[in-house]
């Protein structure tokens, strides 16, 4: 029999605990020891997960949850105000903006897709939680792309071979596949805009200098999207028309 003293002995002992740990059948002290072990041992972590999947099979009783339970859960989460999303460029009222004359001059892309680009005070932001998992994002994009009711457009810019794809699903979840956009110099950022019902232009998000898959949310009708290049951290209203990528729905 091999040497099971010291570190190897500890590992052996901890390995033997993995089944009981997966079933919550260890003392609190042992639980902490296994927690520490799993943090540095992917094999052991995978074994625990495998045990839990088996336990899931044992637990499958086919029972229905009580009818009124969902209502209580819904009430509880409904009472919780969602935390604010990332701070985005806000769009000021056109009339209130100190540079109102300049604004009308620097948004030709918006004028081209909307009769009157009157900028409304609309605070639309990324509704993603800051800590939302990124791993499954590609799955969400696939689902949106496969949905026939989703809106899609390709955003292109004059004189550029690069483009970005945008998808907005039925629920107003938007995705911009912006990997092809060139990386911007330091101090600049891409900014997304939407032309909405009535020709209002609203800021939908700041993508940074090197965007990949970016997300946003929309409520109501959107006629066009545009991505402009701005000085970091973005602007509060009408973006720079030079080099703007525009797509219409």
């Amino acid at each position, binding site marked *: 029999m091999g040497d099971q003293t010291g570190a190897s002995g500890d590992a052996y002992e901890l390995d033997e605990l993995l*089944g009981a740990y997966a079933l919550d059948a260890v003392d609190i002290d042992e639980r902490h020891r296994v927690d520490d072990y799993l943090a540095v041992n992917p094999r052991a972590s995978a074994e625990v997960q495998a045990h839990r999947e088996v336990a899931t099979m044992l637990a499958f*009783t086919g029972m229905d949850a009580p009818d009124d339970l969902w209502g209580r859960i819904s009430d509880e989460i409904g009472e919780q105000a969602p935390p604010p999303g990332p701070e985005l460029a806000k769009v000021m009222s056109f009339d209130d903006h100190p540079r109102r004359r300049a604004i009308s001059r620097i948004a030709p892309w918006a004028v081209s897709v909307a009769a009157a680009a009157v900028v409304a005070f609309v605070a639309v932001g990324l509704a993603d939680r800051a800590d939302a998992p990124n791993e499954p994002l590609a799955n969400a994009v696939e689902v949106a792309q496969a949905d026939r009711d989703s809106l899609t457009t390709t955003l292109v810019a004059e004189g550029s071979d690069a483009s970005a794809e945008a998808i907005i699903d039925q629920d107003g979840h938007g995705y911009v596949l912006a990997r092809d956009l060139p990386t911007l110099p330091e101090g600049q950022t891409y900014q997304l805009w939407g032309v909405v019902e009535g020709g209002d232009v609203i800021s939908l998000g700041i993508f940074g200098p090197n965007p990949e898959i970016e997300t946003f949310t929309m409520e109501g009708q959107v006629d066009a999207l545009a991505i402009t290049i701005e000085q970091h951290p973005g602007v509060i209203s009408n973006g720079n028309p030079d080099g703007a990528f525009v797509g219409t729905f």
Partner: protein
Amino acid sequence: MKREYTEASDATLVVSIGRYQQAALAEAYRRHAGASFGLAKRLLNDHARAEEVVQEVFVRLWNEPNRYDPDRGTLRSFLLAHTHGRSVDMIRSDVSRRTREEREAREQADGGYDVAHEVWDLALAGHVREAMETLQQGERDAIELAYFGGLTYKEVAERLGEPEGTVKSRIRSGLKRLRGELVHAGVTVGAD
């Protein structure tokens, strides 16, 4: 505009939950709340407390969706692990334990633990039953008492009159054997 989540993957559901889409949480509830409730009720022998646990589990998913990593397993196993852990916490509180032991004593007279009977009518039941039957009696007893009894392996050892190390090993070997049997039978057992 109501989005249909019925065919969405677990990962997509959780992404949508992360965006405060209550319909996505409702779909997760539709898929998994029954199993969660069944497990909690089995452990706690108390309808109201089982509801309390299920409510906690789904509200937690709503508040902390990033705790679920789809690369590490199914959403069902994630939710049931939380259900089990929370139920066991309740069981191990003194008051719960007293209440439970009184109920348990009554239930033992009616047959006690019987996993196979619980799942008999389900499509999965046959495979689970057959897999359970491949276990040695000591493995089966240890797993059932630990998982459905909410006992630590040390308490299981005391209950069965076996050495703690033996029970610990039996739980692990039994779970491995179960997994092997289920996979052999063609049952998908979570993410590998």
